[in-house]
């Protein structure tokens, strides 16, 4: 009567956590409605220094960037699967010199509405939309957009999972971006987590510490203000224009699981690629050289 194996206890798509404060957590959650008891959060800030971008002969030099993200998503379990209901705010700020043709703030405030579900014992499916406002300093109804993703994970075995997906944003330069990736635990302490937008090679240095070499790829569409062009380079083509902002960060990081619901992530590296692309009017600024960055985030799930 022993037909079992125990691969599942180690899975969870590679997440190991400690349980040091579980009793306290249980005491708190007893008084909370069940649909509020499961969720995830993220607070992250990235600072990029000494960056330059170029458009032909025009160069914008020595600006810095701060990218802040706050996200809170409830993940109640239903018969359909795990719902994802929450909100996210992201703000890029740049200290461009006066007269630059670029916005000094890009920000989004959106809802997160999604579902993770089991299609079979081998396939997990995620549908997630982020309806909200994607603009500059003052968000308004003109800035509304609703990017969404559809992705699937094929669980080949506990050590290998294949991910396929597509991201859709009708206001981005490339509205549909397909993606594929693999998560492969190829040795006891090593995982190749080559899944966009944050592909990584991970090394489990200790039970609660993971080191990684990785990248973070971002591409989001924003709409600038009705008079943006009038005040930035006197180019009225840029009034109410769509801007696709892209950047790629590559660096080394450490993930320290402080407790069951709190993880600290620190990362540093270089940003080799960045574009500000007013693609409909062919005004495009590209990274000139690379820029160093540092990132800190606190995140967790409960």
């Amino acid at each position, binding site marked *: 009567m022993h037909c079992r194996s125990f691969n599942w*206890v180690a899975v969870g798509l590679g997440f190991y956590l400690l349980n040091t404060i579980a009793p306290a957590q249980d005491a708190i959650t007893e008084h909370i409605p069940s649909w509020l008891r499961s969720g995830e959060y993220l607070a992250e800030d990235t600072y990029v220094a000494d960056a330059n971008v170029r458009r032909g002969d025009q160069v914008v030099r020595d600006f810095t960037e701060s990218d802040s993200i706050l996200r809170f998503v409830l993940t109640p379990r239903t018969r359909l699967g795990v719902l994802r209901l929450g909100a996210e705010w992201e703000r890029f700020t740049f200290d461009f010199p006066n007269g630059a043709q670029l916005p000094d703030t890009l920000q989004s405030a959106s809802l997160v509405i999604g579902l993770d579900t089991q299609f079979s014992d081998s396939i997990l499916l995620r549908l997630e939309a982020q309806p909200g406002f994607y603009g500059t300093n003052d968000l308004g109804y003109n800035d509304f957009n609703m990017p969404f993703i559809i992705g699937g994970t094929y669980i080949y075995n506990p050590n290998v999972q294949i991910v396929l997906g597509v991201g859709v944003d009708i206001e981005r330069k490339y509205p549909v971006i397909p993606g594929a990736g693999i998560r492969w635990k190829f040795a006891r302490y090593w995982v190749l987590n080559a899944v966009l937008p944050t592909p990584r090679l991970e090394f489990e240095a200790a039970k609660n510490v993971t080191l990684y070499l990785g990248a973070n790829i971002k591409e989001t569409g924003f709409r600038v203000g009705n008079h943006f062009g009038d005040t930035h380079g006197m180019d009225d083509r840029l009034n109410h224009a769509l801007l696709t902002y892209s950047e790629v960060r590559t660096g080394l990081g450490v993930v320290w699981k402080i407790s069951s619901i709190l993880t600290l992530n620190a990362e540093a590296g270089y940003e080799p690629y960045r574009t500000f692309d007013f693609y409909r009017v062919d005004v495009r600024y590209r990274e000139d050289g690379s820029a160093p960055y540092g990132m800190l985030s606190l995140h967790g799930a409960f």
Partner: protein
Amino acid sequence: MKIRPSLLLVLLLARSTIAAGDPAAELASFSVFDKIDINELVKSDVETIHGPPMAGRFLSVQSCYVVPGSPEKQMAALKNWDPTKHRELKVFLHFDLPPSPTPENFSKLKNAPDNGSVRAFVSATQKLSNELQISKEEAKKFSTSQNGDGIAAVAAPWAQVLSARAKSFVSGGTAALAPYDHSGEAIRANEELQSLLKQQDKIRKQFSGLLSESGIGRSAGSLKPELYWELLDVDDHGVVTLGASYNRAGGNYQAADVLYYASGGYYVALTLYQMWPVTADGKAFTLVWRGDMISAASLEDLHGVERLGSESVMMKDISKAVTLFRRDTGGR
């Protein structure tokens, strides 16, 4: 709407009559299989789906399948099946134990294969790693009695620990087992099993008779367990584990298989079986329901899609194990 007591009684009686006479209805009354078609199941593979969502460090999966022959034959096949024949199940050693185990009953541990999992097990033992699930008293045995290299260096103290735990289980059920407190928080197998069953109330009620006569989640019961031990792989780490099986036939075919001790990887695991004799196309078959429940530290903090992922892998593993079992025993 008010229902008069007499009408309520009639409704309850009607429901229990349906349940007693109809395996599919009884299955639906306590499992996640709301509606099954025996004739379809005869032709199909095992059907495996996740159980009711469980909080904390627990996970459950339920399976349902039909095999030729009688429930008695299935009970015997479960008892005699040898998982070590299938490398993919990663059970390296499996041995039955007598009712009064001694350290000699674990002597085959020193013949364990020399692979990465077993080396990790030896290394964790020699370092007295925090991941080892032993008591403080047991830890003292390891610190004083390790001679030789490889698995041979740790086989003797493990034989002492395992035989002592098996004896404790025989005499007092899981309630008599020492906690895992070598590295801090005390984890008790008895409480883990009680918590597992508390979150599966319908299953607990369905199996209350069998469980109350066993040593699962309580002190020793009137049923005599069939004992065994195994060396298996959990996430590339070797784990020694102690198990016990109980079964009850005669109209209500139920069985329980508990892994009440593990040196790492998981705290406890419980598998329950219920079987019904059924007929399809004029032939005798057995409808089998299997419920797997596990408690493991690494599951504690899985949420959202991570938990779905773990459930999916657990479902795949159980499907694989059941498929191999059916193939070996002529069930498919």
